[in-house]
C-alpha cells in the first residue's frame, strides 16, 4: 500500500534524496528546535476543544515522546521503506484514535510554519531554502500516506466487517455522489 500511495505523487515533486540530504545535513540545528516543536504542537492541540477531545488526561507525555521519536528519526534518516511504512501505519492508528485528516493537515501546517521560520532564522539562506523545500515535500508525502492509508484501511475494515468490497463500496458511493452532484447543479451550487 505504501509504495502504491507514494507512486501517486508526481515524481518531479516527490520527496527525494536531495530533500533527505538537506534535512540530515542540517539536523544539528533542526534538533535544537525539538523542544519548541513538541511543546508548541501539543499546546496547540490541547488548547482547542475538538483536538483536545482526542486525548485522555494522562497521555500528553507519551504523545510528546511519540512526536520526539518521529522528529529524531526523520532528521537522522534513512528514508527507507520502513520509514514510509511507519507513516502509513499512522493512518491506521488515527482511525482508531479518531484523529481525522483535517486535524493532521492543520497540525502539519503548524509544523511547517514553526520549522520554516526557525530555519530562516538559524540557517544560511540557501540551506534554509533547501530545508523548507524538503519539509514541504516531506509533508506532502506523509500527508498522502496518512490520509490515503486512513481511507484505504477504512475500505479494508468495511470489507472485513460487512463483506462489501472496495470496488462495490466505491460503486455505491459513486451512485450517491452522482445524485448529490445533480442536486448541487440544480440548486446552482455546482
Amino acid at each position, binding site marked *: 500500500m505504501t509504495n502504491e500511495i507514494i507512486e501517486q505523487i508526481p515524481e518531479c515533486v516527490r520527496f527525494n534524496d536531495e530533500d533527505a540530504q538537506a534535512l540530515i545535513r542540517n539536523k544539528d540545528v533542526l534538533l535544537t528546535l525539538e523542544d519548541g516543536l513538541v511543546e508548541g504542537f501539543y499546546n496547540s492541540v490541547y488548547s482547542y476543544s475538538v483536538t483536545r477531545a482526542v486525548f485522555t488526561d494522562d497521555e500528553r507525555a507519551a504523545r510528546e515522546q511519540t512526536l520526539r521519536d518521529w522528529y529524531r528519526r526523520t532528521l537522522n534518516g534513512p528514508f527507507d521503506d520502513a520509514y514510509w511504512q511507519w507513516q502509513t501505519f499512522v493512518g491506521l492508528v488515527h482511525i482508531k484514535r479518531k484523529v481525522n485528516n483535517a486535524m493532521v493537515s492543520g497540525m502539519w501546517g503548524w509544523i511547517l510554519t514553526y520549522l520554516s521560520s526557525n530555519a530562516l532564522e538559524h540557517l544560511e539562506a540557501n540551506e534554509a531554502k533547501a530545508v523548507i523545500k524538503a519539509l514541504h515535500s516531506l509533508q506532502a508525502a506523509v500527508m498522502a500516506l496518512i490520509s490515503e492509508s486512513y481511507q484505504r484501511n477504512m475500505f479494508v475494515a468495511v470489507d472485513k*466487517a*460487512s*463483506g*462489501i*468490497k472496495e*470496488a*462495490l463500496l466505491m*460503486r*455505491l458511493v459513486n*451512485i450517491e455522489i452522482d445524485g448529490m452532484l445533480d442536486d448541487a447543479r440544480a440548486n446552482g451550487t455546482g
Partner: protein
Amino acid sequence: MSKQDDLNKITKELRMNVPDISGVMIASDEGLSIATDFAEEDAVRVAAVSAAASGLGNRISQNASLGEPEEVMVKGRDGLLLIYLAGDNSVLAVRAPSRGNLGLVRLEASSAAQEVRKVLG
C-alpha cells in the same frame, strides 16, 4: 450463443416459469448489472445493493456460524427481494410480491442461480 445470451435466456425463463416474479437481476459482486429486466432507472441501484446485501449476508453467515450462505431475503410491505450467490463473482436477485407463491419463487430462483453459476463460473 454468447454468455450474455445465456444469461438473458435464464432471466426470461425465470420470469416465464414464475409469473409472480416482477424483476430479475444478475449482477457482478462489484455491483454492476450483467443481465436484468429491471427498469433501467432502477437497475443501477438494484445491482449495487444486491451485491452489497449478498456480501453482508455472507459475513453474517460466517460470524453467526450459519454455514454456507444460500439466500438473503429482504421483505417489505409491498414485496420482497431474494438474493442468491450465482458463481464466485456474481449474484442473482429476484423481486416478488410478499403474498405470492414464495416456495415456487425460491425453488426456481435457486435453480436459476445454479444456471448462472454454470455460465459465469
